[in-house]
């Protein structure tokens, strides 16, 4: 697969603070790639170094094989959708969308046609003569998209573009953004702190924390096979339990769960016997019918509509969350009752700390 962006050991320092600690990533052509992480993890800084708003302290950034790390933003064939849109308030929607083309020296007639085409793409053809302030948040968002797409960039950078929208609109825009990426065939690099957003749209996700990439993979891998505690904890809801690894052989590990039950699961590279942690997703636990893997005391049952959440504690005090489908077949335990839990085969993921 062709590489769109190659980020090679990029370091960004602000005085003594290291925002990016040697980040390396390879983003493929025509990919919807997401940088996901909590605020302050360096994801926006990384995006800004690709756009050219920040220079890198060390490392290289290649765009389709060409090193762009030293180029100013106007020399980079990438465009950005800003978090607060940054639409020019003194220009009409049409002039906003046509601005990039104007700077590229495209003739007015063609500029107008391309702006109209872009506005049609985002369903805003009737708003060309309005000023940005006369539009709703969602409409401004679309104008920002149209403006960034109009010069046909090779890569589109999106800096938390949905965070200012309300929930309903945000969910609708997810689908629309994904479709837009597929129809235009442009590589999207999307920054967000919202894991659900990342899982819903991305071809691949890079989970970042503390100026470093923790894991890169498709949504399913990230969710189901997190490599470390941070990723397991950050993506979705999970139970992190202390376990003892008794033996490792042929890519499998035999582990002892709290309470003494032994099971076998996939080992991770570099795993040695000893004390470790596993991550078990709440929906991969169920109430045991016979032989239980874990025994816990129920503290509370929370009704969530489609799901039920069972909050319990193991004998050693470790909290454990179980998600059960809301079904009339489930006989719900009462608070204070002792229950046996079954871990679905392969659901206990060993973590490297």
């Amino acid at each position, binding site marked *: 697969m062709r590489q769109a962006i190659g980020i090679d050991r990029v370091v960004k320092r602000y005085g003594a603070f290291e925002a990016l600690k040697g980040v390396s990533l390879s983003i493929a052509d025509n990919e919807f790639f997401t940088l996901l992480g909590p605020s302050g993890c360096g994801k926006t800084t990384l995006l800004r170094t690709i*756009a*050219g*708003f920040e220079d890198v302290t060390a490392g290289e950034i290649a765009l389709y094989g060409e090193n762009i790390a030293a180029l*100013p*933003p*106007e020399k980079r064939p*990438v*465009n*950005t959708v*800003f978090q*607060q849109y*940054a*639409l*020019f*308030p*003194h220009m009409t929607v049409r002039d906003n969308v046509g*601005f*990039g083309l104007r*700077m*590229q020296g495209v003739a007015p007639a063609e500029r107008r046609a391309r702006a109209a085409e872009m506005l049609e793409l985002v369903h805003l053809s009737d708003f060309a003569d309005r000023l940005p*302030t006369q539009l709703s948040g969602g409409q401004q968002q679309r104008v920002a998209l149209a*403006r*960034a797409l109009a*010069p046909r960039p090779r890569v589109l950078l999106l800096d938390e573009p949905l965070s200012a929208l309300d929930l309903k609109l945000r969910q609708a825009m997810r689908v629309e953004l994904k479709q837009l990426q597929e129809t235009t065939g442009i590589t999207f690099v999307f920054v967000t702190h919202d894991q659900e957003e990342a899982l819903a749209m991305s071809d691949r996700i890079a989970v970042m924390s503390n100026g470093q990439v923790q894991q890169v993979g498709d949504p399913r891998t990230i969710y189901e096979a997190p490599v470390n505690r941070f990723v397991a904890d950050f993506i979705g809801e999970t139970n992190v339990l202390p376990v003892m690894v008794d033996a490792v052989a042929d890519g499998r590990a035999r582990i002892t769960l709290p309470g003494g039950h032994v099971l076998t699961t996939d080992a991770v590279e570099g795993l040695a016997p000893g004390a470790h942690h596993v991550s078990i997703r709440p929906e991969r636990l169920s109430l045991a019918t016979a032989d239980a893997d874990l025994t816990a005391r129920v503290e509370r049952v929370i009704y969530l509509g489609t799901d039920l959440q069972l909050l319990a504690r193991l004998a050693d005090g470790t909290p454990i969350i179980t998600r059960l489908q809301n079904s009339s077949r489930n006989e719900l335990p009462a608070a204070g009752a002792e229950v046996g839990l079954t871990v679905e085969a392969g659901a206990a993921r060993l973590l490297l700390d």
Partner: protein
Amino acid sequence: MAARTDMRRYAGFGLTTALCLTILYVPLAVIAVYSFNDDRSITNWAGFSLRWYADVFTGPEAPIFRAAAWNSLSIAALASTAATVIALAAAVAMIRGGRFHGRQASYALISLPLMVPEIVTAVATLVFFTAIGVRTGYGTILVAHITFCIPFAYLPIAARMQGIEESYELAARDLYASRWQAFRLILLPLMMPGIISGWLLAFIISLDDFIITNFVKGAGMETLPTAIFGSVKQGIKPNIMAISTLMLMVSVVFVTLSYLANRIGQKTR
């Protein structure tokens, strides 16, 4: 608003207000009214007349006033324009320049003329011009006016610029605009209300200045305030009231324009 105490309920509110308004505006009103008085006396009302306005333009002192008015207006226009350009450059450096060495000191320097007693600046400026051997006259007035106009132009410009997010310029750069294009096509239009406001304010300050001008003007060189002062020394005649009223009107017009420029600016934010 309803939750706040209504100020009008405080004891003495009406009296204090009346007193303030009286002190501030009655003298101005008296000047304006008596400028239309058909009498040589400045205290006896003898009917409405425009004769003192005619006197300003055609009377014996008319050539002096005309020359002074031309000096005042041209100096105000040049000084406020130069001060605005300098203030704009300063604002860009101070607000977009990041953290540079001496930023605090620069800010103090820019606003210094607001705090130094004007008479001190006046003496210092005169001493400076004498020391470097420059003949006082139109040029020295202009240079002095540019200097003290800078902070007045700077304040509205900086206030406006502080409200403009840097992401606009970044967006322009991202869309292939050079640094200069981003400034000219994005930042400058967005700042225009602040620039106009700053220019008008500087113009008024320059037009109105007496102390510094009086020190650095040199012999035979008059601006309106110094000409008025010179004329008043020989006794207050109604034509002074007429010319004062005219200046007041110019000020009111400029202050209104400055206010409107800011108001329009609020809408385009």
